[in-house]
């Protein structure tokens, strides 16, 4: 497995291009010159608008489709190498399984594909049903499952082989807030265990919260990549939280064009110009007020995403 200064590379895409035939000799470009690496033990986020090529990228990594050109390596091997698949777990977007089976039977089926013995399968199924909170519904046919239940059981099947690399396509879609929180906690726990997680999601707040590195795709091209910290630039907005603020200070700060908000007995000033912060702090203090905190706000991933997509050109609907 190749190593870099950043760590052991688990997934590597080099100048990958993917065209889909459209009939009559035409093609549509899904990915163009896409390159990135995923390192062992990180949570890697792949984000992008609809049609940006996220699912195509996942399918290429899984060996479900073939690249038009470029190179893909998973655990330093071809994605079509069968031994690689022993180390992978995959949860597709909006998963659908054999609905004539119940949860026990479904997990048993996938366990059999990995060649686990009966006792191994039994033990693993118990652990996984417990982990995804589906023990109560283990005998219910999948056709009666809600979307969220299907997502939970999908996660269980992705973990059946205790994979080193977990590929998750929109894992929290359709799941209630508690379930979504549980899944995020699980991802963090798996990272602690040294697992690598490749996450495709539209939920940018989640990606920002749990991912170590992020790639933003737009129209099949990588338009931003880096650690979350690298991507999120500080803004000019500064938030000052103060107490015992006099009316004069209110008036003065309002004239600077700052927004004022009351929060739990404190006053929150949000200055649009960072350079005015020292004089506002001085004014608060000179009027016997107390400054509780000063924070220079950074962009959210959503800000970065929207800015990047706009700069790169949004998909045109024709």
């Amino acid at each position, binding site marked *: 497995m190749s190593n870099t200064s950043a760590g052991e590379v688990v997934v590597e895409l080099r100048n990958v291009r993917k065209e889909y035939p459209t009939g009559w000799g035409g093609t549509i470009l899904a990915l163009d010159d896409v390159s990135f690496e995923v390192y062992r033990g990180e949570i890697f986020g792949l984000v992008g608008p609809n049609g940006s090529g996220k699912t195509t990228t996942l399918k290429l990594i899984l*060996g479900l489709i073939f690249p038009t050109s470029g190179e893909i390596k998973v655990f330093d091997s071809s994605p079509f190498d069968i031994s690689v698949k022993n180390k992978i777990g995959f949860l597709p977007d909006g998963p659908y399984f054999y609905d004539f089976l119940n949860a026990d039977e479904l997990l048993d089926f996938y366990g059999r594909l990995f060649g686990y013995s009966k006792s191994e399968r039994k033990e693993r199924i118990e652990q996984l049903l417990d982990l995804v909170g589906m023990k109560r519904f283990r005998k219910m046919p999948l056709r009666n499952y809600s979307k969220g239940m299907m997502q939970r059981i999908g996660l269980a099947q992705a973990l059946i082989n205790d994979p080193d690399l977990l590929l998750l396509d929109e894992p929290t879609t359709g799941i209630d807030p508690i379930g979504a929180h549980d899944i995020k906690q699980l991802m963090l726990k798996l990272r602690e265990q040294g697992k690598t997680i490749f996450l495709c999601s539209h939920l940018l707040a989640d990606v920002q919260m749990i991912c170590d590195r992020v790639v933003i795709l737009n129209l099949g091209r990588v338009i931003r990549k880096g650690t979350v910290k690298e991507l999120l630039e500080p803004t000019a907005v500064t938030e000052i939280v103060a107490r015992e603020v006099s009316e004069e200070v209110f008036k003065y700060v309002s004239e600077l064009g700052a927004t004022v908000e009351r929060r739990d007995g404190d006053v929150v000033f949000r200055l649009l110009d960072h350079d005015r912060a020292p004089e506002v702090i001085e004014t608060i203090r000179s009027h016997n007020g107390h400054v509780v905190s000063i924070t220079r706000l950074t962009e959210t991933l959503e800000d970065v995403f929207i800015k990047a997509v706009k700069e790169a050109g949004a998909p045109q609907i024709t």
Partner: protein
Amino acid sequence: MRVVWVIARNTFHEAIRRKFFWVIFLFALVAIASANLFSGIAPGEEKKFVFDFGLGSITLFGMLIVVFLGATMIPSEVDRRTIFTILSKPVRRWQFLIGKFLGLALTTLVTVACMGALLIAVHSYIAKGLDINVVKAVVLAFFQLLIVGAIALAASTRGSLAFNIVFAVLVYFVGAQSSSLLTLAEPEKHLAHAHTQHVEPVSWKAYVFRGVLKTIYWLVPHLDNFDVRQAIVTDSVVPWQTIFNCILYGLLYCSVLVIVAIVLFQDQEF
């Protein structure tokens, strides 16, 4: 082999839990069991009627089952996206396809075995004894249906559901008349009176037409060889050699179809 068996077992379980399977299967059983009730329309020929009607039911309802199962096999996996989670596990594409075929074969075997056992029971009751020719005919019906199922499965690796069904049914009907194709392609050899009459020179159009017919003849399965109804209703003995040859032909034809299906499936994108 383990993976192939896991896929085959799952395919079989899925097939027998489908509603349409039970509707057709139960309908076939009712038709075979009630054959005796209709045998009155052929007085003195009750035994032959029960056999003819029963075997016809096995073939017709069996064909409906295998064509529908075979034709939906791959498209339904792709549409439901269940294929994503299977091929992302350590499953080779050829293992998946052979597993699907064996699952279909197992379903066909169980279906034909149940329908055949009922036919043999009804026929033995009317004939006051077991006629081994009926058993032979049921065995041949199984292999005939297996070929049709393999055709539907091979088509399903690339075609849409509607195409797969139409294609498999069309091949079935053409295959069931394959010897007629040869007669049309080579009338001089097959028509008895051709030897006594003056033979007109063949035009290029007729030559091309005959070539096409001959090609179709060699491509389609010779399913009429599996139909021994005529021999049985005329009280002829169906030789074991014929049964053996048909089984061998059926297995070879299915093997070729599965290999074709694997080749078509190998570079399929999902």
